[in-house]
C-alpha cells in the first residue's frame, strides 16, 4: 500500500504489489530487470514504483494515482493477480498488507 513516492514511502495509497522478478535474458542486469519491471507493471495496469530497498529483482507496483470505487478496486485486484501469476518472469508476488507493529 505505498504511495507514488517510490517503494521507500508512506504506506497506503491504494493496493500495491511486491514482485520478485527473474531476468528473462538470464543476465540479471539491473537495467534489464528495471525495464522488465516497467513493462510488467504496465501490462498489469500498474506503475513501477521502483526497486524495494537493496533487494535485487524485487519491485513495488502501485496503482496510478486517483480515487476508485471499491468494486473497481476488486476488479483491478483480480486482473493484477491474473497477470502476475501468469507471467514467466515472476518468481513470487504478494499484495502488500498493513502490518501491526508496536513500540516496546
Amino acid at each position, binding site marked *: *500500500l*505505498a*504511495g507514488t*513516492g*517510490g*517503494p*521507500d*514511502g*508512506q*504506506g*497506503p495509497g491504494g493496493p*500495491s504489489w*511486491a514482485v520478485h522478478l527473474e531476468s528473462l535474458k538470464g543476465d540479471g542486469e539491473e537495467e534489464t530487470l528495471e525495464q522488465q519491471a516497467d513493462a510488467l507493471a504496465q501490462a498489469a495496469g500498474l506503475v513501477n514504483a521502483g*526497486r*524495494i*530497498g*537493496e*533487494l535485487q529483482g*524485487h519491485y*513495488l507496483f502501485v496503482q496510478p494515482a486517483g480515487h476508485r470505487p471499491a468494486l473497481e478496486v476488486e476488479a483491478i485486484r483480480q486482473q493484477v493477480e491474473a497477470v502476475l501469476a501468469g507471467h514467466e518472469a515472476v518468481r*513470487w508476488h*504478494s499484495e*502488500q*498488507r*498493513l*502490518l*501491526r*507493529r*508496536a*513500540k*516496546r
Partner: protein
Amino acid sequence: SVHFNDPKYPQQWHLVSPVLQCAVSGGGLLTISLFSRLHPSPEGSYDLNSNDPDPMPHPDVENGNHHGTRCAGEIAAVPNNSFCAVGVAYGSRIAGIRVLDGPLTDSMEAVAFNKHYQINDIYSCSWGPDDDGKTVDGPHQLGKAALQHGVIAGRQGFGSIFVVASGNGGQHNDNCNYDGYANSIYTVTIGAVDEEGHMPFYAEECASMLAVTFSGGDKMLRSIVTTDWDLQKGTGCTEGHTGTSAAAPLAAGMIALMLQVRPCLTWRDVQHIIVFTATRYEDRRAEWVTNEAGFSHSHQHGFGLLNAWRLVNAAKIWTSVPYLASYVSPMLKENKAIPQSPRSLEVLWNVSRMDLEMSGLKTLEHVAVTVSITHPRRGSLELKLFCPSGMMSLIGAPRSMDSDPNGFNDWTFSTVRCWGERARGTYRLVVRDVGDESFQVGILRQWQLTLYGSVWSPVDIRDRQRLLESAMSGKYLHDDFALPCPPGLKIPEEDGYTITPNTLKTLVLVGCFTVFWTVYYMLEVYLSQRNVASNQVCRSGPCHWPHRSRKAKEEGTELESVPLCSSKDPDEVETESRGLPTTSDLLVPDLLEQGDWSLSQNKSTLDCPHQHLDDLLHGKEEQIC
C-alpha cells in the same frame, strides 16, 4: 572516577563501567535509532512514513512519538554539554529511520532494514508484533530477505547488526519465540532485567533470547535516564524510559563499543562474543541450566547480563569465527495426534556424522524447528526441543490468551540454549496439549530441523573461553595492541544520501545572498575606480565634458564620463541642456549591461560623499545632493 557535567549523569545507574575510563566511547561508528540533539548522521537517516530524509518525530495524540529520541539518547547522548544524560556509546554517530508512525508494509520494512546499510553499522529495533499473548507474527517475505541481505552485504560485508527487543508481553504469558524478529538467527535478541537482577513484570521468557541489559522494573525501582523530545509535554530529558525498548539500545551501544575496538567483527562474531561474555547472576527464579559447552542459559535472562567491560576486552582479541555451516533435515511427515497432558508426543531425528560431512558443521549456534500443527486452540500447545546433550528448550510455551483455531502453519521456533554443543546426535521434539479439555485432538502434521553452527570443535570452544578470560584484566585494551583488521568490501547502495529540502532551501538562499553581494561589491569597486580617474581631470579648473558625437556614443567606443548626480530635477535638466545626459539615464540597469558608463563626482557634489551606490543603482532621480 569518570565525571561528566550532564545533570542526570549521576542518576544513570546502569552506566557504571570501567570501559569509560579507557576512552572507549564508540567513536567513528554509527548506530541507528531516532534523530535527536546528538551528533546526527543525516546520511544514515530516513523517514519512511513521510518519504523524506528527515526522521524527526511528529507530535501525536498519544504522545508516544518520543520513543525514538529516548532510545537514541541511551546510545549516543553527548557528554559534557550540561544537558540531560550520557549515552553508552557517546562517541558514536546516530541516525534515525522513522517507520512506526504510520501504516507499515512488508516492503517498507524491507527498505528500513537495509536503509543506508553501508553507512549504518547497527540497527536498534525497539519494536515488534503486538505483545498481547495471542499473536504469532514476524518478518514477512521481504523483511526476511532484507534481514538476510543485511547480514550478508551490510557494513561492508561484515554484516549489519540487528538488535531487537524481546518483547513486553510478560503479563500475557507471551514468549518471544512467537515473534519472528526475536527468534531470527540474524538478530541479537535482548531482554530486560531490573536493577535488583530480576525479570521485570513485563518481560518475556524465551529460548532464543541471547542476553539481557538493564531497564525499569516495578514502580519502586529506577528506570532508564535518557534524552527525550521537547515537543508537547516533553522536556528534552526523562528518567522514565523502560520496557524492553530501553534494554535493546543499551545493548546496541555496547556493541558499538565492541566495533570501535574491532570494526571487522562479523555479525556472528558479535553474537558469539555476547554468548561467551554475558554474566550469570543469582536469581532463584531464573532456572539457569549450564549446557555441554559450559554456557549457562535461562529462559528469563538468556546467557545473562551484558557487560561492556567484558564485551570490549573480548572484542579486542577476537579472531573471526569460521564460516556459517548449516544442516537442514528432510521435511518429516508425522500426522500424529497430540495427547492431553501429562502424556506427550515425542518425535526424534538423528543427525549423523555423514549428514554433517558436507557442511563440516561440528558445534551448534542457533537450532531451529519449523512445525505445522492443527489444533482448535493454539495456546494450549507446548513444544519442547531436546538437543543431543539433553539440553531442553521450551520453544513453544503455552499461552492462555491464544485461542486461535488455526494452529501453526510452517512456523519456525528457535533456541540458542545448545550454543557450542556438538551438532551430531539425536534431537527430540516433545509436544503435548496442556489445555483443559479438547473435543478435537491436535495433529502434528510435519516438522523440520535446521542446525546452524561452525566447524569449531568443542575443544576450540573451550580454548576460546580460556583465551577470553585471560583478556578480562584489560591488558589488551591499550592502543598499541591491535590484531589485523581487513578493510571490508566496497558495496554500492541503491540510493546514496539525498540533501533534505530544508538544507536545499538554505543553500539556495545563501547562494542568492552571495551572488547579490558579489555584484554589489563589484559595482562599488568599479564605480569608485572610475570616480578616482575623473578627479585627476577636474583638478586643473572647471570640468570639461568632451562633447560626444552621437555616432561615437552609439558605437560606445568612447569612455563616457558624466557627473554622478545632478543638483536639479533631471527632467528639468533634460529640457534645458539636451546634450548633457542625466544620472538616471546612465545608471538604469539596461545601460549597466552595456558597461560604458562610469561613476563620476560632479564639482558641486563634493559634499555628497555619503551617497550610497544602491540609491544610484535604483535610479533614484530625487536623490539631490
